[in-house]
């Protein structure tokens, strides 16, 4: 297994007492697999992603990458956030090649072949996300969608073992969002990076993933683990009309709805 999350729990102290955010999460992700975590807001899906990425500590349990314990953020785990995270003082090109300029990433000797390969990788990725013509622009001069495309290209340049995406298209309008989903499928078909993708959008999860993990709110538990059987070279527009897709969507929405009804009923009882 590429990535393994074992009996992971997370609770933290808030003003109203201890919040149990994640409960006994078990998750295995295979090499090159694209897995989505869906759930209503506040179900702890982002927290889970942050723990996997080494940004937050779990209360108990472990995260392993290729059998090695994850102890903190590093080049093995690439991150793409919802908020724009490009470096505003660098151009698009400088942003995307930033990982190559880090000391840890320097080849022992300045191998000319390696340097050419890197330049080619950067150029290919920029072309792939349609930003080659904007390589000299600063992030502030780009639209939200373009900024996210550059952020994805930058994350891939670092060649992470696993790409962690935390609602990367959450702040975009629906039109741009669909374009980005199409683009991510296209990028993924070429780079096949193992990806863990957090979203509250069931359509998005089903369109992009090999597997969809459904999380319940408070505490976050895994409700379902649904395999998405469509071929990787899928087209989002066609897929949405596919009866199989509609069936899966009902299944996921059903899980989420059932859970949230139970949750709100419990909450109103507690309130009394």
């Amino acid at each position, binding site marked *: 297994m590429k990535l393994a999350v074992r009996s992971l729990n997370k609770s933290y102290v808030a003003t109203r007492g201890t919040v149990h955010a994640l409960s006994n999460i078990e998750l295995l992700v295979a090499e090159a697999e694209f897995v989505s975590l869906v759930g209503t807001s506040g179900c702890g899906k982002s927290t889970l992603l942050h723990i996997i*990425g080494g*940004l937050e500590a779990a209360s108990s349990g472990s995260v392993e990458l290729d059998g090695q314990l994850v102890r*903190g*953020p*590093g*080049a093995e*785990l*690439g*991150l793409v*956030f919802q*908020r724009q*995270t490009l*470096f*505003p*003082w*660098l151009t698009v090109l400088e942003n995307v090649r*930033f*990982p190559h300029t*880090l*000391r*840890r*990433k320097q080849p022992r000797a300045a191998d000319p072949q390696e340097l050419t390969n890197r330049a080619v990788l950067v150029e290919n990725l920029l072309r792939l996300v349609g930003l080659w013509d904007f390589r000299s622009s*600063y*992030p*502030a*001069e780009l639209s939200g969608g373009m900024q996210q495309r550059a*952020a994805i290209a*930058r*994350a891939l340049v*670092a060649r*992470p073992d696993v790409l*962690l995406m935390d609602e990367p298209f959450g702040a975009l309008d629906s039109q741009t969002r669909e374009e980005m989903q199409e683009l991510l499928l296209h990028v993924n078909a070429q780079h096949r990076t193992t990806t863990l993708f957090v979203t509250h959008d069931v359509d998005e999860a089903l369109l992009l993933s090999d597997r969809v993990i459904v999380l319940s709110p408070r505490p976050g538990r895994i409700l379902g683990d649904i395999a998405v059987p469509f071929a990787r070279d899928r087209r989002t527009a066609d897929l949405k009309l596919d009866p199989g897709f509609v069936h899966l969507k009902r299944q996921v929405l059903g899980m989420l709805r059932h859970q949230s009804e139970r949750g709100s009923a419990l909450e109103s009882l507690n309130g009394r």
Partner: protein
Amino acid sequence: MPSLVRDAVPIAGRGPQSRQSAQPPPRWFPVRGEVEARRSRAFALLGASLLVVSYLWLSHREWVTSALLPPLSSVLQTGWQTLQEADFWLDLKVSFWRVTAGFLGAALLAVPLGILAGSFRLCSALLEPVSEFLRYIPVPALVPLVLILLGIDEGAKVSLVFLGTFFQLLLMTADEVRQVPLTLVQVSQSMGATRLEVVTRVLTPAALPGISHALRICNGWAWSYVVVAELLAATEGLGFRILRFYRFIQTPNIYVYLLVFGLIGLGLDGLFRFLHARVFRWAKAGRA
């Protein structure tokens, strides 16, 4: 058809209310909005003229002696003479040197330390409470101690400027570094950046526009501190000379030197802003 339109319930933003939004935006006083450049230039000129006119009006009152507010003509005449005096240029040079030495010294030390304090919690614990305490000690109150320690030579004046700006700059720099979104740090770590690289290649460039702003503000204060130092113990410098003029009640000269202070301030401020705009083009684009 017409009756249908009349009976239709207006939707928010359409209907009768839309008449308001159809009006052009106010040309003179839009709230936080842009106005034409010539209008804002005219108002800047108006502000300056108000100052000059009030001065003229007051200086022509019978109940105002010329020792208090000398006629503008005599101030300008004195100003012209001052420009030809070697003493003036010496004062300017000496004060400028003191400010620059003290301020540059403070900046060269405080900015790196502030970056450390903003980046590492323990550096902050080590440096910031102490700086907070020291920055509340008024610089004039430090003068006697500095004179005892360093005598009345250059070192004392430069030190006062240094002491007045160092702690402020350190704290302001640390604040600017803490303003940088944590996601930038996390993302750079996820690309393999070391701690050193996170500080030098992410936090520092991200905080630089804010630090540059802090430097501009502190440079203004530095001029106050040099005058404090010169009023008390000096044999030349703009502050020293102003005290001399007071002893001989040479009011026009005092006004000339005050004008000089104002012009130096405007000049340096403009220089800082100009450099800021040149160096941080990306930050300007970000605000648009």
